[in-house]
């Protein structure tokens, strides 16, 4: 029921496809054109190819932008259509970025509703539209209920009633000043809020895990040229996919193959060795390798242990691997060792091996599996996967709780703290359904003896 804000959603299916489309509708459209694509006054209905620049200033993808002016779009509002490469990760990044720029994920049927309200759909269609919206919400509700019947619902209700309880505590001290309500001190309140926050954070994090898991975990083999990456790739996928030779720079583009390690869906990448080169083709391959580091959940850094430490290589990827999970593979240990291992990223796992060994891949696979388990292990009874829309509401709810904590520490009045608590509850209401003041009063009268 908040007309007038700018809504955004994925117009194509949420999965791999050749192209994906994100639709934006509302009066932020024009300024987004300027902020994201540097297009100051877009020509209506003209496709322009531009880099999508995220709010952090990073290029997300090359995007085809079309701007529709007021009254000339599907919804009748200013609209943007962004066509990008059909990769769910890119779609996610774009949606996230647009939300950060004050857009809101559209409710089911909302585009059609706006189209109708702006007179873009014939009046005779009104009832059909009404039915459509209701059906869409039914489906959404059904999906949510299905999910909510389980532990997610329990967790959310615990959070919701935790916040309502806190609200009742503050309200009691405001509304019944003559009833000897014991006020909680800051420590006691924090002891209530912190577990709620932890619980919410866990739920939010599970969103990211969910999309990673369903789309496959990316693992890439990265290293200087001619250290045996392609040999390792072939061994891990059990076939001779990658061309192998003694000449360095054999792999120009990356190769990928899906496989299963320990029950996880893995997408393994063999990449071009990274070195300074004058070959334009090889240079492009190297750029791809670096991009892949960014996209990968795990990076296998492969070194030739018979060569000195390749500082030039390491310097060129140092930034990219900083926050990654790294497994270092020191290959060719059957030769004389010249590699010093002083400069690996912190917390790296190190495997020394030789590709000439037949069972070397077994060893490496078991290490990868161990790392996967540490990183993605889901406890089916306690971990819950939350959808993007739900997680967005949780993120907002969490930010209001953070505000509550900062207000309490600066000893601001209860009625101001309550404003934040109510906003936080409202966000959670979007996921589990409405609560109103009566729910708070129920808690209040249950917990406090009122009645001067």
């Amino acid at each position, binding site marked *: *029921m*908040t*007309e*007038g804000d700018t809504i955004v959603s994925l117009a194509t299916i949420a999965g791999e496809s050749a192209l994906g489309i994100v639709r934006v509708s509302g009066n932020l459209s024009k300024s987004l054109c300027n902020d994201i694509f540097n297009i100051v006054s877009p020509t209506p209905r003209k496709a322009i190819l531009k880099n999508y620049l995220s709010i952090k200033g990073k290029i997300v993808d090359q995007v085809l932008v079309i701007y529709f002016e007021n009254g000339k779009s599907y919804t009748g509002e200013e609209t943007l259509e962004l066509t990008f490469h059909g990769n769910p990760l890119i779609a996610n990044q774009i949606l996230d970025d647009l939300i950060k720029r004050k857009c809101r994920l559209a*409710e*089911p*049927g909302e585009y059609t*509703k706006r189209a*109708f*309200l702006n007179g873009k759909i014939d*009046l005779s269609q*009104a*009832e059909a*539209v*009404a*039915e*459509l*919206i*209701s*059906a869409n*919400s*039914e489906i959404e509700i059904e999906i949510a209920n299905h999910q909510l019947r389980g532990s997610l619902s329990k967790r959310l209700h615990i959070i919701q009633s935790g916040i309502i309880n806190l609200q009742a505590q503050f*309200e009691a001290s*405001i*509304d*019944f*000043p*003559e*009833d*000897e309500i014991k006020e909680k001190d800051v420590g006691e309140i924090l002891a209530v809020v912190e577990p709620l926050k932890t619980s919410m954070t866990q739920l939010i994090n599970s969103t990211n895990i969910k999309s990673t898991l369903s789309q496959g975990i990316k693992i890439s083999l990265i290293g200087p040229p001619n250290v045996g990456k392609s040999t390792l790739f072939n061994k891990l996928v059990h076939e001779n996919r990658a061309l192998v030779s003694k000449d360095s720079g054999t792999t120009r583009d990356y190769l990928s193959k899906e496989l299963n390690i320990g029950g996880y869906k893995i997408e393994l990448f063999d990449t071009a060795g990274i070195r300074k080169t004058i070959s334009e083709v090889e240079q492009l391959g190297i750029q791809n390798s670096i991009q892949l580091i960014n996209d990968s959940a795990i990076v296998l850094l492969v070194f030739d242990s018979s060569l000195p430490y390749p500082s030039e290589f390491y310097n060129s990827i140092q930034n990219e691997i900083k926050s990654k999970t790294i497994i270092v593979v020191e290959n060719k240990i059957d030769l004389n060792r010249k590699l010093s291992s002083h400069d690996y990223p912190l917390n790296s796992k190190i495997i020394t091996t030789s590709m000439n060994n037949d069972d070397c891949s077994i060893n490496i696979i078991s290490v990868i599996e161990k790392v996967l388990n540490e990183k993605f292990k889901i406890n089916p009874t306690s971990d819950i996967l939350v959808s993007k829309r739900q997680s967005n509401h949780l993120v907002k709810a969490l930010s209001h709780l953070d505000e509550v904590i900062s207000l309490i520490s600066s000893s601001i*009045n*209860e*009625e*101001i703290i*309550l*404003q934040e608590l*109510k906003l936080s509850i409202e966000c959670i209401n979007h996921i589990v359904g*409405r609560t*109103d*003041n*009566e729910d*708070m*009063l129920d808690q209040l*009268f249950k917990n406090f*003896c*009122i*009645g*001067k």
Partner: protein
Amino acid sequence: MNFGLKTDELNPYDVIVCGAGHAGCEAALAASRCGAEVLILTGNLDTVAQMSCNPAIGGQAKGQIVREIDALGGEMALNTDLSAIQFKLLNSSKGPAVQAPRAQCDKKAYQLRMKHVLELNENITTFQSIVDGLIIEKGKCIGVKTTLGINFYGKAIVVTTGTFLRALMHVGKEKAEGGRLGDHVAKGLSADFAKYGIELNRFKTGTPPRLLGRSINFEKTEIQYGDKEPTKFSFYDTRNKEEMFHVEQKGRWFHMEQAEQLPAVQCYTTRTTSQTAEIIKNNLHLSPLYKGDISGTGPRYCPSVEDKIVRFGEKEGHRIYLEPEGINTDEWYVNGLSTSLPFDVQNHVVQSIPGLEKAVIIRPAYAVEYDYANPTQLARSLESLKIESLFFAGQINGTSGYEEAAAQGLVAGINSARKALNENPVIFGRDEGYIGVLIDDLVTKGTTEPYRMFTSRAEYRLLFNHTSSELRYIPKLQILNLVSQNRKQAILSKSLVVNDWVKRIRTEKVHANDTYADLIKRGEDETKLPEDFRKLHKETRSEILYRVKYEGYLLRELKNIERMKDSERIKIPKNFSFKDIPGLRIESAEKLSVIKPETLAQANRISGVNPSDISVLMILLAKSNTN
């Protein structure tokens, strides 16, 4: 000018008010201010504006309501200020939005003054007679029948019968008919309401015993002083003396000298003991509440002492307040000791409390059950959805509290007069103040226990600080003749002064980096502000400081109001059919058909109506508006 009573059907009153309690008095006065000729009927002229329960006005959320009533020209605030014997500002250590004035009143002084206000009003006729039936013609109420056998005719009728409908009082197993100890019962009306399809339910409420003061040992209790500097309910800064003391000037027996403060009194507190708990537990089987003799639902915020002991135990005892009922009597009200236990048990309970060992009960405690009409059967004007020209206000709508009743009386008074004079109803919004929240809650959500106002019910609570009441209702004063021209001008100029000062403090620099607002927000006091600020009235100053200090939070509330108003603007036609709407769930359609919301925003507040239902409605409303 009235020459006696009018009983001619062809020459009806504009408005007839049935009942002269807190709702009835404000209804009659507001209707008369709106230009109506009013007849007010009461079963007993000696109990006009009677405080049936505690001898106090105001308190949390209620105090704010009384100030709003004053902003709208009502009498309750003036009447309280001039009969109060102790003032206290509650929550004075908390923020301005949740501070609330409260006053102990001299019960008789309160009542007599209010009665005289009615008597002095040239547009109002008072008459003692019990109303026991309605005169309905073609779905429209055109008059009332009385037990005297006389009928009165009116263009609009306001029913403010409080707890008197089929009222049944309980003391232990003893039962007596009547809405208040020593008073009558109204039976005929209930039957008539039922006949015309108005659904009635039962509520229960209770009142504690009254004690003889000289039998109390006050030395064993703790003194509760009032505030040295009283926070009054009426706005003095926008009235001249004549308006302030209108009764005291014109009244036959009232005098200006009396208007000076009545002597201040103290209240006292003590606690229940483990012995109290013991007595109650041993006699629980004699309580009609626990025996199941009482079927009506009671208020959770005002439980009987037996409820408190059963539900919360007796660990530290429960606090009891001793409050004097007036300065010309030695009758004391025992706040916190409401009960329906038998009289002998009441005596034991009282005497188990420190200070009350030898206390003599001069009026027993009792519970009362009564009919109320679920308020979802009303429009926001408080006119019945079932019978035209019939308005309801006060406890009959399922509320409790003098202040809640008075607020409804004011609204029903205004709208009944407008109905009689063929004018459109005036709606009080949730964004304007507690009165709007009260009315909207009642007609939209109904109530399952006697409804009392809490500040938590108001989503824009931060804007409803009591000092801003007059400023918030300026738009209403522009369309309604509720206050004198003088006062209206004074309110408008106060508003300008507040706005100008807020702007000045926000923008004017004290030194290079800081505006005055920066200082205030950092917690500096008002002595840092320009000299002439101190010349302003105290209430004006505190309003300005509040707006400056809480600017960010208040702006957020204002923004939320704007959002709400968007859907408040989408009106639902009176005869809109919610049946057979594709996509609208049956459950929602049923609720909407009963409550008949007037706007989309109101529909959205009905519990059980989903956002998707609202979307569907929005689309169909857009369609029907275009057609």
